[in-house]
């Protein structure tokens, strides 16, 4: 046994302050979690309902019906030209509520954070969500955070749920398309899908394509004020315009015929698609809306859509008829007709 015990060098180990990276403790529900809420989430999303700090948010609503929609976002990379996962998480859910004809008011948000995520990345995402929510005029009123072990997630996943108010008498939905209607699209196809693909850096070439990710509730509100007779609104996200129109054709029991010549695609998107063997009709959009309404209202609708910065390239792309029911057809540029089917599984680049 030692004669003396030298204890002058020993100190009580103070835990490290984890203010650079997410660690499991941030999801513990304890002090670190509270800190994350106080320093990161509250400043970004600040509003009375959130500030109350209760288990749920209490919000005021006017009379009418409520529209609810939920979406989970798992995009890689988290940041891409034209947007990021936060912008996407707000716009995606705002748009899903808006295309029901409702006015989106509130969002809830769930974060799944991977251990090791840079806090600065999370802060960039929350700042982006703040800006998107402000533009869309919605409040993020309640949320949740979980942290999973490194390797169990891809940096950051975000789930959002949106609440909106649907005015009495408004009936917009995928089953409302009628023979004689026309199909409008609020701009070019495939910008988001190609921007994200390019941002992954796997293509071996660079493009200047930017994601079209945008909140469309303003544009949709203006459209519905000008043209209350809109039958269908839908945002053609994953699966693209072709898949969304197939869903509508089936729901409404109608035939939708597209004009190949009028389908809007940016030259850069068209080039990437040519090289990889993709069809822009199947590539994702995050800031476009398909509008189906009676032919006599088409001109007014286009005029209204074009006034918005998100609808400047709006164009009529097709018509609705009774038969063959539940089909989407295309008049090709050279005058033949073919079927436009849904996307089967994952879109794969072809061999040569």
């Amino acid at each position: 046994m030692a004669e003396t015990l030298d204890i002058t060098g020993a100190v009580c180990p103070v835990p490290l302050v984890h203010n650079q990276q997410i660690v499991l403790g941030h999801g513990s529900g304890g002090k670190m979690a509270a800190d994350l809420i106080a320093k990161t989430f509250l400043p970004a999303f600040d509003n009375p309902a959130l500030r109350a700090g209760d288990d749920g948010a209490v919000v005021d609503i006017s009379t009418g019906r409520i529209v609810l929609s939920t979406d989970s976002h798992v995009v890689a990379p988290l940041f891409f030209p034209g947007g990021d996962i936060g912008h996407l998480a707000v716009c995606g859910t705002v748009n899903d509520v808006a295309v029901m004809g409702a006015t989106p008011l509130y969002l809830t948000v769930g974060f799944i954070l991977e251990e090791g995520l840079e806090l600065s990345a999370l802060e960039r995402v929350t700042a982006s969500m703040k800006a998107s929510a402000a533009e869309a005029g919605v409040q993020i009123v309640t949320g949740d955070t979980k942290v999973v072990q490194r390797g169990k997630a891809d940096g950051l996943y975000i789930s959002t749920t949106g609440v909106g108010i649907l005015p009495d008498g408004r009936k917009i939905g995928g089953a409302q398309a009628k023979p004689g209607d026309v199909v409008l699209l609020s701009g070019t196809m495939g910008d988001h899908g190609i921007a994200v693909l390019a941002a992954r850096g796997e293509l071996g070439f660079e493009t200047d394509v930017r994601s079209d990710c945008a909140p469309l509730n303003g544009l949709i509100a203006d459209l519905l004020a000008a043209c209350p007779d809109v039958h269908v609104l839908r945002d053609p996200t994953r699966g693209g315009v072709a898949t969304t129109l197939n869903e509508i054709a089936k729901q409404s029991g109608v035939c939708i015929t597209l004009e190949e010549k009028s389908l809007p695609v940016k030259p850069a998107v068209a080039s990437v698609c040519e090289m990889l063997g993709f069809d822009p009709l199947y590539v994702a959009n995050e800031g476009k809306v398909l509008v189906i309404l009676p032919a006599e209202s088409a001109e007014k609708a286009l005029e209204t859509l074009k006034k918005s910065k998100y609808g400047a390239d709006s164009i009529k792309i097709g018509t609705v008829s009774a038969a063959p029911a539940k089909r989407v057809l295309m008049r090709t540029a050279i005058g033949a007709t073919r079927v436009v089917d849904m996307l089967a599984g994952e879109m794969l680049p072809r061999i040569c």
Partner: protein
Amino acid sequence: MEFTTPFRDADLVRGVLAEIRRTVTRPWVLMEICGGQTHSIVRHGLDQLLPPEIELVHGPGCPVCVTPLEQIDRALAIAARPEVIFTSYGDMLRVPGSDRDLFSIRASGGDVRVVYSPLDAVKIAQENPSKQVVFFAIGFETTAPPNVMAVLQAKALGLENFSVLVSHVRVPPAIHAILGSPSNRVQGFLLAGHVCSIMGYWEYPELAEKYRVPMVVTGFEPLDLVNGILATVRLLEAGKVEVANGYTRLVTFEGNKSAQKIINQVFMECDRPWRGIGVIPMSGWSLRPEFDAFNAEKRFDVADIAPKESLLCIAGQIMQGQKKPHDCPAFGRECTPEHPLGATMVSSEGACAAYYKYGR
């Protein structure tokens, strides 16, 4: 896009179609050899606008479709190994093997990655020295230069953890097999423009002479295709047998000689089974013995693979031009792009997938 737009000009295409109608006097059966051409024809609806005298049958030129089942089963067995990163062109992932596909290997924990170029697979091998990186080198002559380049580069880098599972096929022996078949109906060929951009078309005059069948090197855009059809019909109507070049902006008689040189340096001709068709003598390319170190079939023990093909699938007859996809009782019923029974329903170049997708 400015490179393709003029070749999709509707007025020009309609003009050539009118000329085809004026030229044709009796029925002709033409085969477009390449799956890319099949897709373009059906996607743009060219087949609907041709005069009824002209029947297009679809050739075996889809590299994904003709990759033999045993080779896919080998790929699946290799990809399932824990030490392997298996890399492939995208559209191979959904091709069914005897009981699974590469997607299900990935879902069960296999490391299966889509690459856009085989050189990306070499890079993955450099970055993962503790893993065995395998590239599924399939395709016709078109993909041979990048595939052999990957082997040459891996050799130059001294990589010991890179190998290729080769299933290469060549067009001329397939044409020979089709024209030599007693049930052959094909009277004229649209040759595959991209294959000829590598190989030239010096291999074809002998075939054309032997079987008295005209051939026209043809591209993939609507205007290329109708021009190729018009040129073939003109030759047929005039009773001429020759090999013409309708894709001069990309193809020369000799082809790309540097590409041919490296192909011959790495590959040698071999007998190759074609899925649904059977073995076509000397129709494939395999690695020369001096590249054994990069041969995945030698590196992994995958010799005793006994494939089980679906009994319903008639892909072989379709790829020989004897039947159309809708002649198959399983088409659109048991066999769809979501649940393919054969590879012709999977690949973006497969005839069945084209018919299904574009509603024929």
